[in-house]
């Protein structure tokens, strides 16, 4: 198998032509987005260069504390991102529920994956742990964000049905079942869609990376399948936990619908 081509500075720089083309197009079409494109490109470049150096350091100094610390940092950023990307204001209790369900869902799936599925030794091997954690955390973040937004907007738009169900003697859980089911559905759709398109519509990032680095496509596929299953597990577990605890925030101890989330 051929060695991977290490891109030279100029080769990498030449890839930025795509951004120049994009900026040119938006300028011609008078879409005022040049600033955002420019900033996004700069951020992406700086973040990835920093991540690259951090990963080199972590790989060369493999230690359980360092690996766990990195995962915790990623997790905190992901939780913060969910708060930021939510359409509506989330109260403190809801924030705690988001953090708890993401942490439990992600950590369970991640550790199951590391210890049972790949059984890597040592378990804290950053070369495995960090990229896999990144994929699991990133996808769970998207799923939870969708779950949070859909639960909050669904409880608002279906307020009459939820209240009507309570008047018919429904428990808060039964009264909000339709809304929580829809929120679960919305949260899972991107993950399920990506499974459907995988291998045909696109080659997933992990697989592409492994193939580029010289790994046999068959091994790359094995990893990809395992990782996507881990992602499904983490997203569904986090979202289920979130919805299970989250819907209760809309009711008080007298099973009355509260109006705080308006």
């Amino acid at each position, binding site marked *: 198998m051929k060695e991977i081509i290490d891109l030279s500075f100029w080769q990498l720089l030449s890839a930025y032509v795509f951004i120049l083309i994009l900026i040119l197009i938006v300028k011609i079409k008078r879409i005022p987005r040049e600033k955002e494109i420019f900033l996004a490109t700069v951020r992406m470049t700086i973040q990835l260069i920093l991540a690259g150096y951090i990963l080199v350091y972590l790989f060369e100094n493999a230690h359980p504390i360092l690996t766990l610390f990195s995962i915790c940092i990623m997790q905190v950023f992901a939780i913060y991102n969910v708060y930021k990307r939510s359409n509506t204001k989330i109260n403190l209790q809801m924030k705690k529920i988001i953090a708890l369900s993401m942490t439990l869902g992600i950590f369970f799936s991640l550790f199951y994956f590391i210890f049972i599925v790949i059984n890597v030794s040592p378990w804290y091997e950053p070369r495995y742990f960090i990229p896999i954690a990144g994929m699991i955390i990133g996808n769970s973040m998207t799923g939870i964000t969708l779950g949070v937004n859909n639960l909050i907007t669904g409880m608002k738009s279906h307020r009459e049905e939820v209240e*009507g169900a309570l008047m018919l*003697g429904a428990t808060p859980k039964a009264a909000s079942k339709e809304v929580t089911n829809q929120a679960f559905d919305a949260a899972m759709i991107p993950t399920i869609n990506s499974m459907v398109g995988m291998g045909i519509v696109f080659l997933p990032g992990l697989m592409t990376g492994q193939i580029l680095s010289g790994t046999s496509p068959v091994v790359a596929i094995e990893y990809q399948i395992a990782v996507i299953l881990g992602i499904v597990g983490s997203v569904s577990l986090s979202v289920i936990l979130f919805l299970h605890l989250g819907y209760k925030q809309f009711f008080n101890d*007298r099973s*009355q619908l509260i109006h705080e989330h308006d």
Partner: protein
Amino acid sequence: MYRLTNIKINELIKIDNLTIPGQSVTCILGPSGSGKSTLLKLLNNMITPDDGQIAYKKQLISDLDPIQLRRKSVMVPQTPVIFDGTIKENITIGSKFSEKEPPSIKQLNGILEEFQLNKNLNDNALNLSGGEKQRIAIARALLMNPEVLMLDEPTSALDEQTAEVVVHKILEYVKDKDLSLIFVTHNKELAAQVADHTIDLMKYSLKKEMTIHERNH
């Protein structure tokens, strides 16, 4: 059956003392915004008063399980709540929510006929007219076999003739099953015609405290 003492909700409702007797028809009268619907919501604990006590069958509502209370004291709001699904699903959902025995197909068809709903049980309930939805909501509550039926403006979306039939059927059912009926209306004539007791909220005006007195006919 219901006893309210020193009830206060913001500036909206102030009730010093009110008794709603059981096994009878009680009518709550008053103009829009006078707190009629709020009063119903107090009775099934959909809301809690800022102050005061409400007792149902001599037990304080605050000591009762609110879900169990709502299964006994079923409320139909003025705007009927229709869930996504068929007419059958919409009528039986009441029993499902309250974990009671679902009505039989015979009962379902029977109540459709009684309420002049010339529809198939498998029709989509969301396509019904406002009046039809209102009748579905009332039928659903009746088939839950409640102890108390609380109806908020039950004939507001019905034409005069249908309203008469529906009211007649409700009363027949209430007498038959020995239920208590509490219903909110702004129609004084209807109240005079059917109510054993009337709670009049007519003197209400915004920001003016008022007391509800029971008026027996």
